[in-house]
């Protein structure tokens, strides 16, 4: 069937600059660039271009310019170009349209409607270059109080404490499994997390054995609906165990790693035969209710001698606050909430773009509900899905998060350009692919340094913002909505966020 689709990108090659070195041809996994030896000319097959910009970045003479294709249908606010292209795609294939990365639709981004406070006159701002500024964060359940016994000068703690994990900055790497991303990308996240003193998340693809000893202490290991890679050593080597119920990009939807991506090492890690599809069911089939969740939480705690906090990750959905409350009562030590704009390696586009609620509103509602029920300290909250910069982190913490997960931001730091073609397995940047020719492009030494720099840069910026507010420890910002004001928000939105409007 002849395709009626218009190309998405226009590839312009400036003849006066091109030296026909064929770098672009080698870099493009989609076969956009082709050199014709007989004609000694470069040709472009731009229908195949995904706009990842790999060729433009690597072109030594800057001869390439890749931009959204200007050719379009008659402008129509209702029938947009994207809607029409999707229709044609489906007419040609009869399939469910897949996509990668996070929701790109213009839902309101609340971070951009919240502004931060700073000290003037009545209390001093603090200069983080001259004074200590502390970002250290504990994740896990806290007791109602601490009982101590005082013998002379000695103070002994007599309360029994729940396991907590310490991170040096409230920024964690989100769940991205080995299989969804390349070994190199996975390793880079682990290396950066270890170096900075924070956590990475294995996703549901297991943790390769050779990484456990070195990186286990910085790993959040997931136990998801497919139970891939879960064994006692996997659970016990980790810092945190996370039960994955849902994902912001595809609430209510499972996962599917196609067999062609299941290489020998991935098969070994996931504990499935090589070349078979790895199917994660939509629900966990032993969790059909909150009491079932409780049983799995305690099964995992039993398996790890009650030494690890257990996290439960859910997608932000309509009644997220009530669900979160149930999770805490079921025994979750950490609850991770993934919002509407959370990323994915592959999801049906219709789900990604239409299901779930924004993380800002979900987070504010959950934090408030847990406080009303007097159980906020019994868990830590990790907010995820659409955290793009350090200000988003600060705003999330002020709304009530203990820490945030970053996925897309970390990938972008490694080279990702959010071309949304993760599901094709042809990532030109070597991140979201199992093709050794492509994944070799990502050098873990360099990629982990880029990630480390990201953590460092953001942490420094967070310190600046904290200092400005006259706060020198991140815990004094947590849930401190006095330091937020809304701009351009409706009454109901301010109410849900629990934030005054600017000037109020």
């Amino acid at each position, binding site marked *: 069937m002849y395709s009626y689709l218009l190309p998405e990108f226009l590839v312009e090659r400036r003849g006066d600059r091109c030296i026909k070195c064929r770098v672009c041809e080698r870099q493009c996994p989609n076969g956009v660039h082709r050199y014709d030896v007989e004609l000694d000319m470069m040709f472009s097959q731009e229908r195949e271009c995904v706009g990842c910009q790999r060729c433009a970045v690597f072109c030594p003479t800057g001869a390439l310019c890749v931009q959204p294709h200007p050719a379009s249908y008659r402008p129509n606010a209702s029938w947009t170009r994207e809607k029409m292209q999707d229709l044609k795609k489906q007419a040609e294939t009869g399939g469910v349209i897949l996509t990668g990365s996070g929701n790109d639709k213009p839902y309101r981004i609340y971070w951009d409607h919240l502004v931060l406070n700073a*000290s003037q006159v*009545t*209390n*001093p701002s*603090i200069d983080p270059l001259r*004074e*200590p500024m*502390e970002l*250290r964060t*504990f994740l896990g359940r*806290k*007791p109602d*109080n*601490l009982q*101590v016994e*005082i013998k002379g000068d*000695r*103070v*002994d*703690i007599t309360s029994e*404490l729940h396991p*907590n994990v310490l991170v040096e900055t409230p920024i964690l790497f989100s769940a991205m499994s080995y299989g969804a991303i390349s070994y190199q990308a996975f390793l880079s996240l682990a290396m950066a997390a270890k170096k900075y003193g924070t956590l990475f998340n294995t996703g549901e693809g297991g943790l390769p054995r050779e990484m456990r000893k070195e990186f286990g202490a910085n790993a959040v290991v997931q136990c998801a609906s497919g139970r891939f890679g879960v064994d006692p050593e996997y659970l016990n080597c980790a810092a945190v165990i996370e039960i994955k119920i849902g994902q912001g990009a595809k609430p209510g939807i499972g996962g599917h790693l196609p067999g062609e991506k299941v290489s020998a090492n991935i098969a070994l890690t996931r504990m499935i035969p090589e070349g078979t599809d790895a199917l994660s069911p939509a629900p966990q089939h032993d969790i059909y209710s909150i009491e079932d969740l409780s049983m799995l939480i305690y099964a995992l705690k039993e398996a790890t001698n009650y030494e690890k906090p257990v996290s439960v990750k859910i997608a932000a959905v309509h009644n997220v606050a009530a669900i979160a409350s149930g999770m805490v009562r079921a025994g979750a030590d950490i609850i991770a909430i993934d919002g509407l704009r959370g990323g994915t390696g592959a999801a049906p586009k219709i789900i990604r773009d239409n299901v779930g609620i924004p993380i800002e509103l979900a987070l504010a509602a959950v934090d*408030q509900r847990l*406080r*009303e029920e*007097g*159980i*906020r*300290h019994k868990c830590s909250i990790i907010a995820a899905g659409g955290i793009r910069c350090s200000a988003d982190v600060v705003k999330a913490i002020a709304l009530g998060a203990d820490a945030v997960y970053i996925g897309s931001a970390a990938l972008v730091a490694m080279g990702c350009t959010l071309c949304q073609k993760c599901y094709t397995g042809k990532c030109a940047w070597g991140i979201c692919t199992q093709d050794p020719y492509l994944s070799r492009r990502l050098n873990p030494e360099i990629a982990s340094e880029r990630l480390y720099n990201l953590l460092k840069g953001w942490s420094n910026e967070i310190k600046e913002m904290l200092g400005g*507010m*006259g*706060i*020198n*420890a991140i*815990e*004094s*910002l*947590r*849930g*401190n*909505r*006095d*330091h937020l004001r809304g701009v351009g928000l409706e009454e109901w939105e*301010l*109410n*849900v*966020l*629990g*934030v*005054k409007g600017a000037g*109020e």
Partner: protein
Amino acid sequence: MRMLVAGKRTSERYLPEKDMQACGLFGVMNVAGERFGGEMAISAMVNMKCRGNGLGGGFAVYGLYPEYKDYYALHIMFERSCPQAKEQVDEFLTAHFHVVYDEEIPTDMRANVVNPPLVWRYFVAPRHQEEEGLAADEFVVEKVMFINTQVEGAYVFSSGKNMGVFKGVGFPEEIAEFFMLDRLYKGYIWTAHSRFPTNTPGWWGGAHPFSILDWTVVHNGEISSYGTNRRYLEMFGYYCTLYTDTEVMAYAVDLLMRRQGLPIEVVAKIFAPPMWDLIAHMDEDRRRLYSTLRMVYAPLLINGPFTVIVAHHNEMFGLTDRIRLRPITAAAAGDYVFLSSEEGAIRAVAPPLDLVWTPPGGEPVVARLHSRDHLASLARAV
């Protein structure tokens, strides 16, 4: 126990703006328990006049009513605009307490104060307390909170035994003159407060000291962690009604010291914990203790500038924030221990001093009856 009938809000957003202020503080205690008059505290506040702006002053006195020391002494103000308030309170008190004696607190109407309310004192013992299954203290707290939130025009200044709070709108010395503190009363602890609010509520109940039972707090500072602290305290049933930092401080002291029984030496490390860099260099036991305190009580770290003087029976202590953004000076002369925002105020009123020192941030100065505990902070002085 819920301190307040929680008025559940539809959103955090509707909370009133926090009250911002700077202040002058003074505290003096005779650790031998000898009672003395208010002259030192009053003159010290005069000496620090520039730290207030006449929009609030107050005093807390301990050892005030030895003849009624077994009864809760309630100081209650009634706004003149609500003539029915006193009747309601009288009825409420009679229903829940044995009122052994009550009278109007004598005042000197010639004092230069604005819009003074009627202030009355009651000496009471709980009635039917067992039926409600509450300890006496909890019973009193609950009833006080009821009056404060449910009776329009009435507000309880203080509710402890053998102590009382006198406060109002004016400079501290004017309040002292109004209540004739220098002429009528003696105590072994006097704490005093002068306000410099950035807004003008002009309500007598809003002046400090802030008090629950026999705990009083005078405070100077603007807490940048107010939202975090307030919301944590709400989970334990403390709902702020005045929206001042002092109120948060008072509730935190009540939660940690009275309800959870932690000593001030530990509580100081919760309010003003040492930096992680410092904790890293401690021996293992202390490292574990300080890390655990920071982990469990992170929401009660009081961030930003503050100095606080807290008193209850037999004890007075002062504390300043972890990076010492607000001043405090301690001094001792014989059996007297002084705490003040300014050294000059102590020198102006005290007998020749044996010791004067500046406690570092996060190091409490604790003066206890019949002990020399206050000298413990001397070793760590700046």
